[in-house]
């Protein structure tokens, strides 16, 4: 082969921007950012071919901290914006960043339909069981007895179970990761990107400002004692019966992604006039 020098492998650093995060010291999202860039490098992507799309909240600040094309939209609608982008530009790698408030509460409906629609996206939710940006209110994954100014004595509501809901709604890839393990998380994100269709990665990402007890997560997480399955019923049973701290790829299906054939039709607009013409 006499081609010019093969480009050096791209580094995670090449995906980092010079813009300083607003996150609190010790926030799990720093590690998730690092897992993003590691995963992109691992897959040998180019920053211009990756779009990071987000909604509103601490986690949703991530796009500008990368050197990729970014889209920081409105609260709860990241999946809709990302779906439109991917459907219009199937050549791009589209990764969506969200949090438990943005993704499971205000964006809950889009979560269901994104799983169902199975567009080739990777949806990463940084779950810290609290609204951090608005300074400490309960989210759908907050424990029912967690006391806060907005919910004195706790909400009394059962927690939302994103993984099994994703599975039931049709997600093609379901995984749980832990921010405290950036390399393992990078591997899971890379696997999610590589797997066609809608890939859902829930990352336990501690908020030590409003949920200092989440420092304990480090001791609580463990690798899932089983390998991933393509049997949705079996995956559902495992997910429903574990304690929420099993880490790993829990389900990987084989559904074909939804992608209308954009760019294929070659007719001119004026060809459409025949149906009106007398």
């Amino acid at each position, binding site marked *: 082969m006499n081609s010019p020098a093969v480009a050096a492998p791209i580094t995670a650093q090449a995906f980092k921007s010079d813009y300083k995060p607003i996150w609190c010291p010790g926030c799990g999202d720093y590690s998730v950012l690092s897992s993003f860039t590691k995963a992109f490098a691992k897959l040998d992507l180019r920053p211009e071919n990756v*779009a990071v799309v987000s909604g509103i909240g601490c986690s949703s600040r991530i796009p500008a901290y990368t050197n*990729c094309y970014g889209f920081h939209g409105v609260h709860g609608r990241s999946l809709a914006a990302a779906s439109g*982008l991917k459907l219009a530009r199937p050549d791009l790698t589209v990764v969506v960043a969200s949090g438990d408030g943005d993704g499971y509460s205000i964006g809950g409906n889009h979560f269901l339909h994104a799983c169902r629609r199975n567009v080739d996206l990777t949806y990463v939710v940084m779950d810290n069981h609290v609204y951090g940006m608005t300074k400490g209110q309960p989210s759908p994954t907050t424990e029912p007895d967690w006391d806060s100014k907005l919910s004195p004595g706790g909400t009394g509501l059962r927690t939302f179970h994103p993984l099994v809901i994703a599975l039931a709604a049709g997600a093609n890839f379901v995984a749980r990761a832990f921010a405290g393990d950036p390399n393992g998380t990078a591997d899971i994100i890379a696997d999610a990107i590589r797997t066609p269709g809608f890939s859902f990665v829930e990352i336990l990402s501690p908020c030590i400002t409003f949920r200092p007890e989440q420092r304990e997560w480090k001791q609580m997480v463990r690798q899932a004692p089983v390998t991933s399955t393509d049997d949705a019923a079996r995956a559902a049973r495992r997910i429903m019966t574990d304690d929420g701290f099993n880490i790993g790829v829990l389900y990987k299906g084989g559904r074909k992604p939804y992608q209308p054939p*954009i760019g294929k039709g070659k007719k001119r607009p004026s060809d459409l006039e025949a149906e009106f013409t*007398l």
Partner: protein
Amino acid sequence: MSRDKEKASISLAITGSGGAGVMTAGNLLLEVAAQAGWYGLMVRSSGPQIRGGEAAALLRFSHAPVECLDDRFDVLIGIDWQNIHRFADEIPLDAASVMLGDPEQGEPPEVFVKRGAHYAPLAFKQMVKALPGSWPNMIALGLAAGLVGLPADSMKAVLQKSLKKGGGEKMAANLAAAEAGYAAAATMPAVPRLAGHVAPGASQKSAPGASQKSGPGAGRDARWLITGNQAAGYGAVRGGVRFVAAYPITPATEVLEWLAPALPKVGGALVQAEDELASINMIIGASYGGVPSLTATSGPGLSLMTEALGLAVAAEVPIVVIDVMRGGPSTGIPAKSEQSDVNIALNGLHGDAPRVVVAPNSIADCVAATQWAVHLAEAMQTPAIVLSDQYFGQTRAVVDPPADIGLTSERLKPSAGAEGYKRYAITESGISPMAIPGTPGTAYTADGLEHNDRGLPSSQSADHTRQLDKRAKKLSDFDYGARWADFEGEGELAVITFGSCTGAAREAIARAAAEGIKARLVSLRLLSPPQPGRLAAALAGAKRVLVVEQNHTGQLYRYLRAEYDLPGEVKSFRHPGPLPMRPDEIHQQITAWSCS
């Protein structure tokens, strides 16, 4: 049948309960008229039921282009009378009107009878029984065609084409039914016939603008039979739209149903979203990706979309939203027209959020106005709202093909590898080059957060002011050209209107002109941003301004008072939907005011 009366236009209504085939008969009648070389339109009106509700096809024919319904109807054909009294206001009859119905279905509703319309019975059901496999609506179609003087061979040609699917027997039976209806027309009371080539309104001028570029003289074979919703869909494609995400809503759904099979043919795609929040965010995402994108909705959907419209303003992502207006507020009157979304279109966003609002002013103009809106959105990297309405959207009309205005999507992009690229750079025009994902060296984050010129979030007052100025300037400094409004005529009285009131206003002015009263018409196509200099020029010498619109509070009137210095006395003439604005009521305003 005597033919002592001739008119510039003839109006005919067909009514019946759901399933009676009223809309089918009306559509076929319109096609017969088109085949015969006439112009015409059909307005749909129906009750709220999905099936089985009352329905009315309201038709008007002429030898010149028809843009609005007349003040009254010459003929009402009731296939049955179930709940038809609900249309009493929408189908004004008088002593000169003829009302036809099947005595087996009972007497015509009292509310019509007391207006003095001449009632003549026709035994639809018995006629159908004699022709097994035929339908009463085909009798009604033949009867209508015969009454208004459409040629029998045109009717036959249309029916043969449309009944092909039903097979030979069904076609033969229904053709025979239509012919029986046609023959029966000769035994019915006389209905005026269309006069020679005279427009509705005694001295109607050919309307300027896209709708009649090729003029009424254009060969009938070149004409289009189209609804406003189809026209808006086609205008979007002409403008370059290749991605649509939308949620079904009356009366906008037909825009989407037309686009769904059309877009793939030209390399595009339509996606049905889970709700309007998803629709608009999907198109913002797609447009951010470089593909001109659009959604279509009605008032309730537009309400849901307002937050994301603000995102498109702030992040400077071009999108187009077609709002096919219906009666509001809330769920309102879904299947009937009203121009009551002016306020939300012009003002319905939080923050200082300039946006483009364009209103087509005829069914044919739905093509050009939507095409223009796509061009404006893309050129200025901003959202554009197209204010259509149920009247335009669901009315089917014979129109002269609207000319291609030649404006498509032209987005300013940075040159590849631009050094030190700044997405939101302050420029002379306010428009800054927009990088498209996939382009090396120009990656940036599009942000709804206030940002600096690089696109990085900033809450500093200097950045906020600079970006607000930039977003306002790009809209205010843009050259909108002559397309901002259609104006015609002269006189000290000016009628300012927009959208579907335009046809009625034009006809009212023509009637006044026939009586020697001069008035001018200004039909605004660009509602936002305001064009005070241009309107002042159009109103030079005017002493009285009549603002005509179809809503309850005078939304356009209030906007004009806020944004423009209108000359002389200014009066608002308005009423809410669903009754259409009719030529006579505007004509009365013009004559009363001119003679006072």
